[in-house]
């Protein structure tokens, strides 16, 4: 991720081509996305065995995840050059947080224990257009950035924050001079906060949105 951001930063430092000297302008967009399942980690509930080392004695196992859910997104961008836009995104979703509880030592029936989360994701990043050919309606792009994911648990009793980083790409489709559609796919990685297991887990997000430029 760090390497990707560095590449984008280098690209941003290149001078814009002569045929693409457009006015800097504001871009506003909104749409919906579907976030895939996010694995939060596996962990056993263990006691200490009756041996000198107290080796783990599994009471039951857990495998925790955020289930797929639709997300509403609004985006504000500022086009710095024909290729480069900086943008910020706010996404809101209400996924189920589920932990599969299995392998009970006393043969309890396995269950998927769950609760509802409200997830707010605030990201800042860059979008780099791979083409500036005005005769084509389609413009491919790559994007990347980082931000914060805030998870508010059911009952609003607990709020956790995690670092959210993403990279992806997609297509912009011009409807007119100032409006268009955007389709993009991203891979998000969450670190800290709600994650319960070891390491970060990737999550795919597919979104479609409308945008207008001013």
């Amino acid at each position, binding site marked *: 991720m760090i390497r990707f951001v560095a590449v984008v930063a280098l690209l941003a430092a290149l001078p814009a081509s002569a045929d693409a000297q457009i006015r800097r302008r504001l871009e506003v967009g909104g749409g919906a996305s579907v976030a895939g399942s996010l694995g939060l980690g596996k962990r056993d*509930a*263990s006691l200490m065995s009756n041996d000198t080392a107290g080796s783990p004695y599994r009471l039951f196992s857990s495998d925790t995840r955020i289930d797929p859910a639709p997300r509403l997104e609004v985006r504000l961008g500022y086009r710095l050059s024909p290729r480069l836009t900086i943008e910020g995104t706010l996404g809101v979703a209400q996924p189920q947080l589920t932990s599969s*509880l299995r392998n009970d030592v006393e043969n309890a*029936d396995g269950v998927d224990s769950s609760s509802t989360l409200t997830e707010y994701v605030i990201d800042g990043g860059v979008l780099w257009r791979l083409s500036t050919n005005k005769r084509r309606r389609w413009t491919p792009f790559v994007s990347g950035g980082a931000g914060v994911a805030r998870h508010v648990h059911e009952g609003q009793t607990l709020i956790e924050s995690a670092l959210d980083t993403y990279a992806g790409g997609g297509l912009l489709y011009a409807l007119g001079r100032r409006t268009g559609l955007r389709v993009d796919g991203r891979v998000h990685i969450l670190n800290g906060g*709600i994650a319960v297991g070891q390491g970060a887990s990737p999550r795919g997000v597919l979104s479609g949105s409308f945008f207008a430029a001013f």
Partner: protein
Amino acid sequence: MRALQRRYLVAALLSGALILAATPAWAYLHLSVTLFGSVKSIKWAQSPVRWLSSNASTPGVSATAFQQAAQAAFATWEAVPSATVAFQFGGFTNATPSDDGDGLSVLGFEEHGDLDRTLAATGFTIDVVSGAIIESDIFFNSAFAWSTSGAANAYDLQSVATHEIGHFIGLGHSALGETELQAGGGRRVLAASSVMFPIAFGRGITLDRTLQPDDIAGVSTLYPAGDLAQTTGQLQGRVRLGGRGVFGAHVDAFNLRTGTISAGFSLNGEGEFLIGGLEPGLYAVRVEPLDDASTDSFFDDPGIDVNFKVTFAESLVAVPKGGAAPTFDVTVQPK
């Protein structure tokens, strides 16, 4: 029952109305008494708590080695940062742990060959008005082989002392353990994660020298340090069976991030439970019958319900910092 059964709680009664039981407000358990219709936790009112070490010795453990092991066990409880309990060694004494009502809290060896399943026991003298502990004594049964070095053929004195000192300060038994029935009677521990589990690990095992999260939650809620209520949270709910409450169900709270387990019990006819002193975070909850040790190791009440299946709660529970998660029900099915 076998000699492995170490922990037999003894109440030195000052009043016929005194009944050792569980405090409804907390679990793990805290010892409590019903005084004039009011339930009170029993705990020390003064700090530091002064204790004496008996001059008695046993083969393999001198009086000095005994005092050092007991001192280390007291230090283990004293070191819990979220609790305020403190102790002071008052010297060696010829008094015995059986000398009740002398105002001295004595720890030491005594021969109790008749108690062939009891490694050690703790007795109390309490103020019948306030519930404050006035005196507490612990005997270690010298009918068993003891060691302070983890010798394979003897019980570890410091481990058992750590358990008994848990009683000494007002903690009851925890049910965070799994056991199996022995062919000759009694139970053998398969695994446990609380020093306050009522049945000892085997000879030569020193694991109970170290407190587990369940023990730390127990002492912290009994002798809370200043900011405990602001830095930890509570989990509360009811265990239900066929529309009625289940009394005496064991409730495990498993922190999905840290992997720690704290536990409590449903403590009334409504099946209500409350587990405090929890690190904020997301918890899975598991309910099981109290069938890994004799129920009277935990409660005096004969009405403990053990006729239901082990069950996971359908909801995950988010425990907040400085507050309580919303109340929830766990519905269990009969066996």
